[in-house]
């Protein structure tokens, strides 16, 4: 009898909690839909009655949580953007929350419990997930009111529209490319010059290795720099780079990819990477280059801002070092990296005043664009003339001048279309970089795996 009672109690307790759990998720979904519906109605009402109220809103009070990357060079950009916002909207308080995830795990969890921040950075495929779940709302109404696109240079927002033709997440970024940087002093001391083709690059690596200097400082604790290195190698022949695998446009067995794998493998065998590359983080890699313990570093063009303290000693390779002799000039303007990555800042469907939140978010994006120029000497993509507070370093200025000459860009890996493809390419390129995986096997395995991977 007692056993029966206890069993019944256990079953009842389980059923009760299970039902509460199920009920909660259903309710969340339901309320999300309802809230989105309300938000849409509210935004339409505001749009109708409030079309001339943008300037009046500058005195409006409000408080918004902004979930954004708040570290390294982004910290001063964010601080300046908040200051500019305070000037324009003195009664609006922006609470900055550091974005601690790059894969959207935190945002997904917050979405599940109905606590998304008012304004948040919504990266990559997460945007599509949140559009489907109706967690984010279209931004078109506020963008049209502000004539937002027209404040920027042409094509800055190309590729940011979702499949239904709406903007759900926007960002305004200057073109960024994956570059190979070098320590000028290390090169000068060892009588080295930036390579223009692959034989020169291989010879450079061998000379640095012989001088007991780590040739390339790779922060392979993260997987993307390794993959981007492979992408650079591919772009020496094929402008599509790793983006060629999206939709199955290109196959790994094509010459550009097999050559890239072979070159990378040979470089690794020649000692391209330090023994601790796979346990090196970005800060350590930067220090290795800065101190001259390493000769080169691969990173995005945002590194110019990170390295501003010692930028005078940093140069970058203008030519693709994987180019075959004779094709230097043609491959020079095939950039690895991307211009418009999907995603950007989005508005939670549950924010209290969606139209005002949109206006605040767009102005915040605008402020960030200004701050990027003034604080980090970034490239100005606004039509308004904005001048940096400090002069750009020589190499940064050279890159800024060269940007307009690039004929093609690929993508940074986080912008690829599916997590499956990202993971596959990350893991495959990492294998290649260990030096214990033959390039032929790399190509065969990758081709086979791509057949079963959503692209």
């Amino acid at each position, binding site marked *: 009898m007692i056993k029966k009672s206890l069993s019944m109690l256990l079953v009842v307790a389980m059923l009760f909690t299970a039902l509460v759990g199920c009920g909660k998720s259903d309710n969340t979904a339901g309320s999300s839909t309802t809230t989105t519906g309300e938000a849409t109605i509210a935004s339409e009402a505001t749009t109708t009655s409030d079309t001339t109220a943008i300037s009046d809103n500058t005195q409006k009070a409000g408080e918004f949580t902004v979930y954004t990357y708040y570290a390294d060079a982004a910290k001063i950009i964010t601080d300046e953007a908040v200051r500019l916002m305070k000037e324009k909207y003195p009664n609006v308080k922006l609470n900055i929350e550091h974005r601690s995830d790059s*894969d959207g795990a935190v945002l997904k*969890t917050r*979405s599940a419990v109905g606590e998304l921040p008012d304004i948040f950075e919504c990266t990559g495929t997460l945007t599509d*997930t949140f559009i489907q779940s109706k967690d984010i709302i279209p931004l078109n109404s506020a963008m049209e009111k502000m004539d937002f696109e027209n404040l920027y240079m042409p094509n800055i927002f190309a590729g940011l529209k979702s499949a239904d033709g709406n903007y759900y997440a926007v960002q305004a970024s200057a073109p960024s490319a994956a570059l190979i940087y070098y320590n000028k002093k290390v090169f000068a001391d060892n009588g080295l010059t930036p390579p223009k083709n692959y034989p020169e690059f291989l010879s450079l690596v061998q000379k640095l290795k012989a001088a007991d200097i780590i040739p390339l400082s790779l922060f392979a604790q993260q997987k993307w720099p390794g993959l981007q290195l492979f992408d650079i190698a591919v772009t020496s022949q094929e402008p599509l780079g790793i983006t060629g695998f999206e939709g199955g446009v290109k196959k790994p067995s094509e010459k550009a990819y097999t050559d890239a794998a072979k070159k990378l493998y040979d470089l690794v065998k020649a000692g391209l990477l330090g023994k*601790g*590359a796979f*346990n090196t983080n970005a800060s350590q890699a930067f220090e*290795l280059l800065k101190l001259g313990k390493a000769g080169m570093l691969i990173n995005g063009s945002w590194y110019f801002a990170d390295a501003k303290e010692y930028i005078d000693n940093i140069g970058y390779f203008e030519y693709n070092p994987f180019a075959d002799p004779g094709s230097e000039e043609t491959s020079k303007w095939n950039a690895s990296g991307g211009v418009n990555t999907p995603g950007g800042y989005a508005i939670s469907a549950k924010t209290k005043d969606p139209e005002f939140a949109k206006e605040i978010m767009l102005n915040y994006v605008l402020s960030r664009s200004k701050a990027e120029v003034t604080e980090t000497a970034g490239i100005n993509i606004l039509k308004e003339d904005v001048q940096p507070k400090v002069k750009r370093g020589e190499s940064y200025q050279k890159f800024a001048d060269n940007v307009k000459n690039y004929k093609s860009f690929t993508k940074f890996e986080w912008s690829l279309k599916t997590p499956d493809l990202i993971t596959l390419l990350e893991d495959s390129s990492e294998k290649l970089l*260990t030096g214990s*995986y033959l390039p032929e096997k790399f190509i065969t395995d990758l081709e086979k795996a791509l057949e079963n991977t959503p692209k």
Partner: protein
Amino acid sequence: MNSIIFSKNKFAQILFSTPVIIIYSLIIIIPLIQAFIMSFTNWDGVNTATYAGLANYKMLFTSPNLKVSLINSVIYSAILVTYQLTLGTLFATILVNSTIKFKRIFKDIYFFPVLLSVSVVAQLWLSIYHGDFGLLNQILKMLDPTWSQNWLAEPTKGIIAIVLAESWKGMGYHMLIIYAAMRNVPRFYYEAATIDGASPTQQFFNITFPLIGQTLKVCFIMCVTFGFRAFEQIFIMTSGGPVNYTYTMSIMMYKALFGLQKYGYSNAIAVFIVVICVGIMLMIERAFRNTHVEY
């Protein structure tokens, strides 16, 4: 008296066991059931899950990472058991039996790494193992420039390097448990054995070892199952890489969840981890079933 009342009073039984049952259900049973159910779905973590049948389990059992993860888990468990239980028992024996001064300081020193956070220990050992500027390679380079190694970036060597760091951190914990068990063995057994002429070694194997057998069993289960659910130290030191060289089942689950963003698949891995850990626990229980000794 109280126990008689409790055994006869059904209301008291239900009253006192209900909170435990509810808490246990909420924390263990229901998440397990949910994980099991979700392991048959495709889910992105936000939108409605769709039924996927056995696809996630098929993906798991055909994954090349599974074999590596299982082998690494076995290596992890074996080294943990060898290092933590052997050294833990040895140090506990010395501390219990020796008359050296500052015994307590030694005990505290052995236990000290347990108090450190995982991230601190991981960073500490990373600075020892790092291939380019790690302490170990610096010393080896001084002896012979060709002796430096990729401690964390090669198959087998990587997982061994990590588990040694893990063992160093956790040894004091097991030592303290074993030490407490040894202290609970009544002294008169040893006095009688000494009078009978038993050597210290004989006393250890015939008195101490059998009487702390149940404690050792618990420590053994903890060490073995830990190998299959090891995560933090590995994640901080290598994230399972390079490639899958330092994968364990937990790392595989994490990568499925946050890398591939396949929540159903990661739940299938979680269920598999539970099955392995419970299976091992039952096997050990069965193996130790007849080892309970009382004098």
